[in-house]
């Protein structure tokens, strides 16, 4: 139902062998920085995507993110195929950031947008932090940096995200940032040994503006971990 991507997401900067220092569009925070994905990041992204656990970095259902006719990203792909099929779609359909610890420059997770709708003023947002990194202060800051960037850089009214309800931690993290549950599809997606609930969450620009101050204050008052 999209009227097409409004943005051409950046592919790669000239980063072969670089530390990413010279990349454009780098957003520096207190604990983390966001930067465009570079070629050197691909093995880490591929490992996150293929580790067999849920969630994977990219949206799963074909009806919500069409991967050029491919079944969504629960397919097993080899690295080369992934680089030629799923990855270009992800990178070209919106904005994709790698978040990394500052100053160590260790990769922390990815933050993505896709399916921009210029007419209706929304886009889809997705973030992924492997393991339990979602509960780190760095991940909390990364979300704020990304939301600030998206709402200031583009005339977006709203962001959507979709999460499996059993993925409780990341779901709570998104709600903590102000995302509100709008639709719950009960027993929608098979995972593990049963069908699990799937939710759509939405965050309006003004909701983030209202939440942002206390969100950042909470962040500043906690020790980083």
């Amino acid at each position, binding site marked *: 139902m999209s*009227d097409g991507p409004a943005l051409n997401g950046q592919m790669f900067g000239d980063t072969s062998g670089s530390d990413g220092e010279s990349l454009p569009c780098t957003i520096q925070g207190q604990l983390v920085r966001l930067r465009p994905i570079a070629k050197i990041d691909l093995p880490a992204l591929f490992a996150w995507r293929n580790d067999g656990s849920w969630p994977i970095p990219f949206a799963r259902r074909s009806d919500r993110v069409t991967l050029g006719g491919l079944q969504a990203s629960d397919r097993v792909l080899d690295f080369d195929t992934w680089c030629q099929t799923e990855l270009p779609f992800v990178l070209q359909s919106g904005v994709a950031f790698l978040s990394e610890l500052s100053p160590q420059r260790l990769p922390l997770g990815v933050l993505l947008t896709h399916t921009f709708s210029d*007419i209706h003023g929304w886009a889809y947002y997705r973030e992924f932090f492997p393991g339990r990194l979602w509960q780190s202060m760095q991940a909390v800051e990364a979300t704020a940096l990304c939301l600030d960037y998206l709402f200031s850089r583009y005339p977006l009214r709203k962001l959507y995200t979709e999460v499996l309800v059993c993925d409780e931690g990341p779901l709570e993290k998104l709600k903590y940032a102000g995302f509100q549950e709008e*639709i*719950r*599809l009960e*027993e929608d997606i098979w995972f593990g040994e049963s069908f699990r609930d799937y939710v*759509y969450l*939405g965050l309006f620009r003004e909701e983030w503006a209202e939440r942002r101050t206390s969100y950042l204050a909470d962040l500043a008052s906690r020790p980083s971990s």
Partner: protein
Amino acid sequence: MLVDIDKSHHKGPDADALIHLSAMQEHDLPTLYEWFSDADEWNLWTNIRRPMSIEEFGRGITQQMQGSSIMIARDSASQTPLGFLQLYDMALRDGVASFLIYLSRDRRSLGYGILATVEFLAYAFKAYPIRKVYADAFEFNKHSVALLLTGGFREVGRLRKHIWWADRYWDQIKYVLLREDLEALHNRFLGYWGTPNRNMPEGFGRREAQRLMVALVTAIFRNGPQERQRLDPGTETHTEDCSHSRCKDIGDFSDMISASRESYAVEEGYPGFAEWTYDRWREYLVPVGHLLHTTRNDDGTLLAALACRDEIYKGEPATRIWSWASSPSLSSEERDRAEMSVVLECAAQAIERGRSKLFVYVQKNTSRADRASRVLGDSPEVLPFAGTMVITSDLPNFVKRARGRLGIETVQR
């Protein structure tokens, strides 16, 4: 590539139906393009605003046919396309898919949309291992919202202020229909016609079942005057001067209902009944193939009547009460007694035909529902759509109970 099939060869088992579904053909494309390129309408089904050429539209449809299931609902008599139905976003591993319907303007609010929806989804649930179907409607699209709710869909949430149209942003509402909901809806409105060679009343066919469904749906969900053409007439005709006893019974039954149709509409919870003409009542009350039972007083005045047909209910041979009424001039107690008497006759004969259950669909919170519960004596089961419930009764137990209440001696054989 779309295949153009000569219409003259397109006479299948559905040819006698009121409407039927079939694959999209090359010659349908101009009609579909006309529907989907109507600038007054495209806001109803898509958030795309860019006009397309017919060539581009055709390529898009052909592409969609590769990854979704598309059917055209047609008027069986003329083969004219009435609507477009699509099952898309089919995630078969998860057992879910999404549903879309477009109905041509001149067929809306006449019951055809819900008929096509039930037909299409019955096919979809049979053809694919899906557990549920989702559908989306924009908040301002009142026709779609009404159709989905009539079709048993339940709202599961809405994307707030999701789509721009005219002067503001509107919600996009998401609905779901479970497999069991569709089965209940199908049984409610179309009965047992889906397996036409088993237990079908003689002369009762798919067309008649569809005609009754359309009539019933428009009666239940009626909320304004009928603006367009009326529905197909029934296949069984009667003349007012007919001397056949069945014709006289049908005439008296129609007289009784027609004379008090406004109160009958309230009693039944079907607002559209209040607007029906006498002829329409005659076509509706005792459809072809249905059995008619009456109770009269000593001077021959009709006290109560019912029409029934044999069906299967939850795997058991049953008889279904199709129409059922008593004279509004009687007291409440007299009406209970007259209706119990006519059901008793129906039940006794149903047992002789090998039926073990009796059931009737009613609207909840109506005096019809109260009376049916009192007379039949069993707890109703509420269905997941349209405020409908089904009341069942075990036939031998009912006969025993009714004879006791009516003071009729049971003859030991």
